[in-house]
């Protein structure tokens, strides 16, 4: 009878704890390596300006223009979801989601810039950002599978 009690306790508390630890451990290391990659690529892309002004500066001689986009869907790990659920009870800032969206935004902008550079553009104007939630496959349709960030703008070629 003793072992059945332990089995009961472990199955009701142990599995969520393991998932939490897994989510935290793996999630944190994934996040850290993503940030490292972001910083490196941002340094590389800094020479390509992305502005959200509608018209490019007057002294640029525009030789061609086209729309460019960059998007990414970042997923939520179990740890983040659990924390967000607790926050939903007491209110306040959800720090783990802030890092998620920060990463998503920077990644989307980088992909837009990298796409523009690949196509030979020199700058992007009228940059806009859109964020939306992907619903998870839960029965009631609630819950978050991930967050999609889309960055789009008009890329221009500057004649020299």
């Amino acid at each position, binding site marked *: 009878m003793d072992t059945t*009690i332990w089995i009961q306790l472990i199955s009701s508390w142990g599995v969520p704890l393991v998932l939490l630890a897994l989510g*935290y451990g793996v999630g944190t290391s994934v996040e850290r390596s993503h940030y490292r990659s972001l910083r490196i690529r941002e340094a590389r892309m*800094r020479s390509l*300006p992305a502005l959200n002004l509608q018209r490019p500066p007057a002294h640029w001689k525009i030789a061609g223009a086209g729309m460019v986009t960059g998007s990414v869907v970042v997923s939520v790990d179990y740890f983040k*979801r659990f*924390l967000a*659920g607790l926050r939903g009870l007491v209110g306040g800032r959800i720090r783990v989601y802030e890092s998620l969206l920060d990463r998503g935004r920077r990644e989307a902008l980088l992909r837009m810039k990298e796409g523009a550079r690949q196509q030979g553009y020199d700058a992007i104007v009228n940059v806009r950002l859109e964020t939306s939630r992907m619903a998870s496959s839960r029965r009631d349709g609630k*819950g978050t599978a991930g967050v999609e960030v889309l960055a789009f703008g008009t890329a221009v070629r500057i004649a020299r």
Partner: protein
Amino acid sequence: MVYVPRTPPENNVSRTHPLVELATLLGGVAAAAVLLTLAAMAALDWIVPHIPPRLEIRVFGGLWPGAEALGEPDGPGARTRALLLRLATHWEANPYPLQLTLLPAAQPNAFALPGGAVGVTSALLDSVQSENELAFVLGHELGHLAGRHHLQAMGRSLLLSLALAGFHRGGSEALPLTAASLTALRFARDQERAADRFGLWLLAQEYGHLGGAADFFSRLPDAQAPQAGLRVASWLATHPLSADRVQEVKDWARQNGVPLQGPLRPLPWRHQDRR
């Protein structure tokens, strides 16, 4: 205008460490749940004694079958009822016209029912070995009636279902609800102990000794000295551990100067048709 590439600082993420945030949230939510439950228990404790027994009898009293359903006048049902009424004569403040309800069931069990009834299962009547033991079980249930515990239990489950209804979101409602139910279970176990003491007192009044009480507990499955796992699981239980209850019988006997053992009376119907 000239484009000067500059790096924005990474200020869109707050500085707190996620584990620290988790610990604060868990602690905060659990503490809030425990406090709310304590407040709810205290409110119940305050409200329930003000519910007049007359009202309770009027609402619930008609639900339980009368004495005719107990079978022949010399059978276990009627004899148990007679024992119940005899025990209750020692309880001077009794407001209820007591009834006994006999339920056919395979598990030995006894209940205090709203409206002033005590329910026992047929399996219980089969498993008790002496009249004293049966008297202790009946006395324990009378203890619940005396403390209006049955009403408090109804109030507790009502509040718990309300809380469940209000909390219908993701997986994190498990934590505050668990904290709340652990607190509520502690109250339930305290009530069981109080009912035990009332039952012991009735035994002392009726027979002059506590024989039979400890026997009942020592026959329950978890009566041996509990190992660590059982101790932890006891926080999840509605009743205290049987080993603890046996100890409390001995302590009560010592504190009130009542002998722990004494001559046990046989069940009035047993020697007629079983032996």
